[in-house]
């Protein structure tokens, strides 16, 4: 599975437990992602996909704990000090969340929230950071970004907010982007636009991307490799082509069978979500 170059992000035997360590929501998961590569993680809701991403970021909710190993550029992340993880978050490993409606703080303008993200890692004046923010908004296709930067999140539609989240994640040009169902809450046309955008931005930055979704159709468009999850464990892992055409695993076949045949992007978002 490992490419010829050493992987950027390597997850080995990752286990996430909740409660008193009694229940594990992710069990013995392993995968690698290299620069410019996209890994799709597919599974039903509750299969532990989001927990995997949060464990990589070190942002597990209260009461959840991760064990195993997560290395970034060869350095172990699990158990690393919060202050050191903080320096990686956003700058090296960024994340886009599922719910764009709740992911931006309603009390601040989107410009201020982008500026804040930039200045958390780069020493820049407010004005310089604002220029970066406006450019980032422009890049994700927000029209009239200079004016819109002064608007509050509730003045944007869900799709626009997700674009803003992406702008925020990309303004520091991270080397790894974790996307947790970024299009699930959006309607189909907006979904297609966001996926196009992500693909384009990834190509420009040669960034590694982990794309988490319940939607096989999305994965088939975006990812070179796929990891299928169920109940916190890996079902199978391989190139997208192999998994989609030759998979013999019954669970994968079941997922594939539920795909409509003609349309690559389907509209069953709520079905499995």
């Amino acid at each position, binding site marked *: 599975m490992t490419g010829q170059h050493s992987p950027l992000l390597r997850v080995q035997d990752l286990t996430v437990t909740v409660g008193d360590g009694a229940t594990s929501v992710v069990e013995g998961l392993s995968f690698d992602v290299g620069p410019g590569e996209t890994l799709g993680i597919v599974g039903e809701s509750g299969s532990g996909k989001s927990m995997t991403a949060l464990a990589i*970021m070190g*942002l597990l909710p209260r009461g959840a704990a991760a064990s195993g190993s997560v290395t970034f550029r060869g350095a172990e992340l699990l158990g690393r000090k919060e202050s050191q993880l903080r320096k990686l978050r*956003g700058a090296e490993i960024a994340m886009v*969340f599922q719910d764009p409606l709740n992911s931006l703080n309603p009390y601040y303008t989107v410009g201020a929230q982008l500026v804040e*993200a930039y200045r958390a890692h780069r020493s820049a004046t407010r004005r310089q950071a604002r220029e970066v923010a406006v450019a980032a908004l422009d890049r994700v296709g927000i029209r009239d970004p200079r004016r819109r930067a002064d608007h509050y999140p*509730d003045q944007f539609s869900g799709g626009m907010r997700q674009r803003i989240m992406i702008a925020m994640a990309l303004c520091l040009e991270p080397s790894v982007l974790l996307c947790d169902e970024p299009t699930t809450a959006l309607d189909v046309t907006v979904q297609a636009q966001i996926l196009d955008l992500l693909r384009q931005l990834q190509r420009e930055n040669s960034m590694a991307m982990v794309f988490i979704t319940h939607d096989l159709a999305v994965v088939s468009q975006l990812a070179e490799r796929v990891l299928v999850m169920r109940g916190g464990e890996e079902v199978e892992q391989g190139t997208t082509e192999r998994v989609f055409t030759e998979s013999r695993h019954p669970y994968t076949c079941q997922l594939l069978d539920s795909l409509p045949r003609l349309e690559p992007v389907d509209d069953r978002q709520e079905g499995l979500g």
Partner: protein
Amino acid sequence: MVGYLVRRLAACVIVLAVVCVFTFMIFFWFSPDPAAQICGKTCTPDRIAQIRANLGLDQPFLEQLRVFVSGLFAGRDWGTGADAMHCAAPCLGYSFQTNESVTDLLIDRLPVSVTLATGAAVLWLLVGVLGGLVSAVRRDSLWDKGVLAFGLVGISLPIYFLALVLQYLLVVKLGWLPFPRAVPFTEDPVLWFESYLMPWVVLAIVYAAMYSRIVRSQVIDTLEQGFVRTARAKGLQRHLVLRRHALRPSLTPVVTLFGMDFAALLGGALITETVFGLDGVGKLASDSMATNDQPVIMGVTLLAALLVVVANLVVDISYRFLDPRVRRGTP
């Protein structure tokens, strides 16, 4: 904004008018006859009728109300000839008990209540907000358990009980503090401070307990919001995540609460002032109620209503600055 202000002001006036009319109705229909009380035991029906006429109590309900309201805006004249006196607007009449002008009485007593409320508010905000905040951030720590216990005990302690117990311990048993009484600051700053110390602390304990519970649960709710996770995911420093993203949304509702509580106390901390014998508006209220001194009751009730209504207005307007969604009128 102008239209909004006009609507809000109109609502305030309605609340005040209703308070005024209701209080008047209670006096008019239910309350024992003040004339008989003033007249005392050796009293003839003629004498009662004369007192009633002097006080204007013989007038029909609406006429009494009209006179009272016009006195508020235009002042009133009392008596004739040499006894004539003018009561300037806002005229609330004269105390049945002491014949003092109610307006003067209120102005006289207000500083004590303001001192009491302000000192207590500073204390309870410090303790309540900080306690609740740290408690939420260090959930399940020893500190958190301490704050939770303090909150529970504090909101369950009746203030008069707490006041009497503290007074017993600190004044009677240990003699550390003098009996509280409202000494003006200019007269004896040390005694002033010592006199207010216990009332401040007692009021502050009860409110700080309530606020620590509220702030704690607000901050915990906010910390679970998606935008706080986003802020952490951007690599923001912990203190910035807390200060910018957790604190502001958590404290905005506390502003409402504080506005209302503070205004209520400015209008007299009835129990605290009564227990500690501080001559503030609250003591005036409870004394006047004990003696059925209707003009004074009317005065303190209206003042309390005015303060609450104004606080409501101030809170609503400040929301427009605190919460951008309210500012633009989106829900």
